[in-house]
């Protein structure tokens, strides 16, 4: 069973993302973290197959989480999708350069999110 780590400081977004993941038709267990710091310790412990993270969070941001994951030998090949409302110029490129697998901007419909998730998941497998 695939393990997916969802990282967002919003409980509503965590629930939404977990439900959307459940609609992919792929058997998976979804772990949830409230910020990058909590996510990193959970990632080290559970070694997820995919990380789906927000960017702008307290404690540790999505940028820093991506860099920490890429710097960890056990996690460095884990796909990381960043989902953020931030459309600043160059932000997607910054995150991809830091090691993110994909960058998606909000607002995003469940259909678009599901399609992109499947692309990344299938790309990995």
């Amino acid at each position: 069973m695939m393990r997916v780590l969802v990282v967002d400081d919003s409980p509503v977004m965590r629930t939404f993302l977990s439900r959307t993941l459940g609609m992919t038709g792929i058997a998976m267990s979804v772990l949830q973290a409230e910020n990058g710091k909590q996510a990193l310790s959970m990632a080290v412990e559970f070694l997820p197959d995919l990380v789906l993270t927000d960017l702008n969070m307290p404690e540790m941001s999505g940028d820093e989480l991506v860099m920490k994951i890429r710097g960890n030998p056990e996690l460095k090949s884990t796909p990381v999708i960043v989902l953020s409302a931030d459309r600043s110029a160059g932000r997607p490129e910054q995150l991809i350069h830091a090691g993110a697998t994909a960058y998606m901007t909000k607002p995003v419909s469940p259909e678009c999110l599901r399609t992109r998730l499947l692309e990344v998941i299938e790309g990995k497998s």
Partner: protein
Amino acid sequence: MSQTVSVSASSPSATLVQTLMCRVFEAMYFYSPQYCGSGRLEQPVTGASVAFAGSVSGELRVAANIRLVRQLTADFLGIDAAEVSEAHLDATVRELANVACCSMVSACMPGEDFHFSVPRGIEDGDLQQNLTHCFSGDQGTPQVGLDFRLIHPS
């Protein structure tokens, strides 16, 4: 030292706000409100703000009628409105402020790099004021609105 000014000519027009916010409401919440200009929202309301900093700095404040926020949350999560908790209401209005601010700033100042704050709740006392851009539902009463302010260094 800085001064706060309401955004007018160089920032979001009513048309731009209407276009961007309707896109946000429809994509996230399947909600299609009508733009109704400035006004005071139907009470009680809840609100959140997001600050941004870059070539210019400022803040976007969003407020919404609590009954509407409950319904938006329910529609977003695919649950019954009765199942929506207080924490959900707070999270929904913060997320709405976050998405609205990022969309608005990038549309007004494309090609620029900005830092956005984590959304924060607005105190009750600050939610009684008129908002510059409001949206109404079927009843015609303003249900959700926003203010967009720039802070120019003097």
